[in-house]
């Protein structure tokens, strides 16, 4: 579901919003949710869905790149779906985001060492080693994955696959809360 017309979809028009949608875990719920975006002609940038700690519910994490006004309408429309229980918009500055990437890179002979070194720097894992290529996995902030992918491109990416991103709100630490209070009062 990545936008295919741009190398850096978050580039100039940085409008990415993360919606965390808690839904009843029922057949068709994903189709209902994604259908709402499709109907209005909005592209979903990434999507991750899995059951929550309570198996009756699933959490759908949706990243969309649209401006505020249509987003507000979409959120309201989403909330009208009977299966949708709660919608939280996560501010990227106040949330932790993670994504997983698996990538197969050509790396034969001398180059293999360089790729392994790069993987080590990024704390990536080597999952499989072939005669002339390596499969590596890396999880982390999506931007970190972007950087890693960019560097691997020089060696030749045979195949790569990324999950949608998942996100949770950052925890407010006691100290930080106090500091914020101090500033505002």
């Amino acid at each position: 579901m990545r936008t295919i017309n741009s190398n850096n979809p978050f580039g100039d028009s940085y409008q990415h919003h993360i919606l965390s949608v808690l839904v009843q875990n029922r057949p068709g719920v994903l189709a209902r949710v994604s259908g709402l975006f499709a109907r209005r002609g909005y592209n979903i940038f990434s999507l991750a869905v899995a059951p929550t700690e309570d198996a009756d519910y699933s959490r759908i994490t949706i990243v969309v790149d649209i401006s505020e006004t249509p987003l507000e309408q979409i959120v309201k429309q989403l909330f009208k779906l009977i299966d949708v229980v709660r919608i939280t918009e996560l501010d990227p500055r106040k949330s932790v985001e993670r994504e997983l990437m698996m990538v197969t890179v050509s790396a034969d002979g001398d180059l293999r060492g360089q790729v392994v070194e790069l993987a080590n720097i990024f704390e990536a894992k080597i999952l499989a080693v072939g005669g002339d290529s390596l499969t590596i996995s890396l999880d982390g902030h999506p931007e970190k994955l972007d950087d890693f992918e960019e560097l691997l491109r020089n060696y030749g990416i045979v195949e790569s696959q990324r999950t949608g991103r998942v996100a949770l709100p950052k925890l407010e630490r006691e100290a930080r809360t106090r500091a914020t209070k101090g500033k505002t009062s």
Partner: protein
Amino acid sequence: MSTKETLTGAEALIRSLEMENVEIMFGLPGGCILPAYDPLLKSSIRHVLVRHEQGAGHMAEGYAHVTGRPGVVMVTSGPAATNMVTPLCNAFMDSIPLVCITGQVSTTALGTDAFQECDTVGITRSVTKHNELVMRPDDIPMAVRQAFLIATTGRPGPVLLDMPKDVLQQTMTWHWPTDQEVLDSLPGYKPTTKGHPKMIKEAAKLILEAERPVLYIGGGVLKAHAAEIVKELAELTQIPVVTTLMGRGAFPDNHSLCLGMPGMHGNATAITAMQKADLLIALGVRFDDRVTGKVATFAPYAKIIHVDIDPAEQGKVRKPDVPIVGDCRQVTEEIVKSVKELLHEGTTQADVGPWRSKVSGWQEKFPVAYDQAEPGERLKPQFCLERLRDLAPEGTIVVAGVGQHQMWASLFWRFNEPYTWVNSGGLGTMGFAVPAAIGAKAARPDRTVWAIDGDGCFQMTAQELVTATTEGIHVKIAILNNTYLGMVRQWQEMFYGERYSEVNLAGCPDFVKWAEAMGCVGLRVESADEIDAVIAQANSINDRSVVVEFRVDEFEKVFPMIPPGTSNDDVMLHPSQEDKREFLK
């Protein structure tokens, strides 16, 4: 009492519908829904056997429109389900409570392209408020309870239950879920009905401050049974009222504060009052494009109080100054209370006298007008409507199709009572009138039901008059026959340089013979001197349906008109009034 009762899924379905107090349902059986039609034989529910599933859907809508109760439809799988898509979408657009039961192939055959299989739930997902494929017979009572709850509460709408054949055939242990069990099963469904007190106070203040206020009321007022309290608000504050196409009848047309219908084919006063207003009190409306015209220039001086039960309507088109999410009746009651309190505390209302005089001036100068036919010319459709209106028995329910005749019906009829106007507003479904009239008459056998139809519309669903005849549901149909798809012809004349493309319906069948073939009385009116006698004859027939064909002027156009994409300030008046345009400035 504690002995567990075992029923088939089909028996459980019919019993669940009985438990929901369904008195009538509209449908047509077929392969996959067969099991459900068997227990229907000994059920208290009346089933109306239609000739086409779309007809069943519109009948259920007509029923729901005039009763406020959910219309119920039962049809089979595949083509029957796809034939239901139009009525479901119609109900979705016009917020009509509808429960539709569709048959489905057995769970073992789902997804195999079995005979008469289609992805009903997938196809209808975007035209229903909710839908569900019921996979276990034990789930049926809960699914039915949820369907009725969802269809009738919050913003009403259609709900579809897809019933695989084997689920209907298998047995289950009967259990009728309690209210609490139903609510617990829907953790994501909590419609807001009570308005925010702070917003209500704010609304009351704005209402008393406004010098040029207009009450802009729509279908939501009827859905919420708020007509009485809205009238109280209008009378208390002396604020004039416009009623949208879906809200016609929510405020009586014979009331001195009523300005009638705004919008693309509204009357000049209603349109202009909104354009000049300093406050719009929008109740149960959705700022539809047919009302606003070009949004950027709509009601430019007005602050907006928007009361709607659907939070997604707030700010969808126009950002309100005071958004109030809630039930129209409850919120309006609170607003009235708050206005009274403010008045009691000594707040004085701004003088709306000058505004009301101005509005009355427009009403006098710009009545809805048409040119009378010269002797020998074809009847004017507006004249036919005036005669139908003036000769109609007290309490007549009017149902319309879609097009010119619908606009004329709305402009020329006088709706003095809520729930006497049934039409397809949002989707604009041609062919709506005949079946919807049958549904309305089934609901209100004590009332005369006149469908105002066009020749194009009538040819889409006329076969349901066979249903009317066999079921003894006697309706009256007025076909304003101009042998054209009239509204399309009007647009081609006005916006496509009179290049008429595929709009001429000349060569349409003999409507009188057709009516007779369907067991109805067929009548025809061709001249002004016979019109009253024929209408009186139609009104006097109560043991059969009556179809009256009015041969009307082919080139008559609906005025006023706001050309699409233009500002409401630039409304095109009837040519005879264009020289008075100055007065609308």
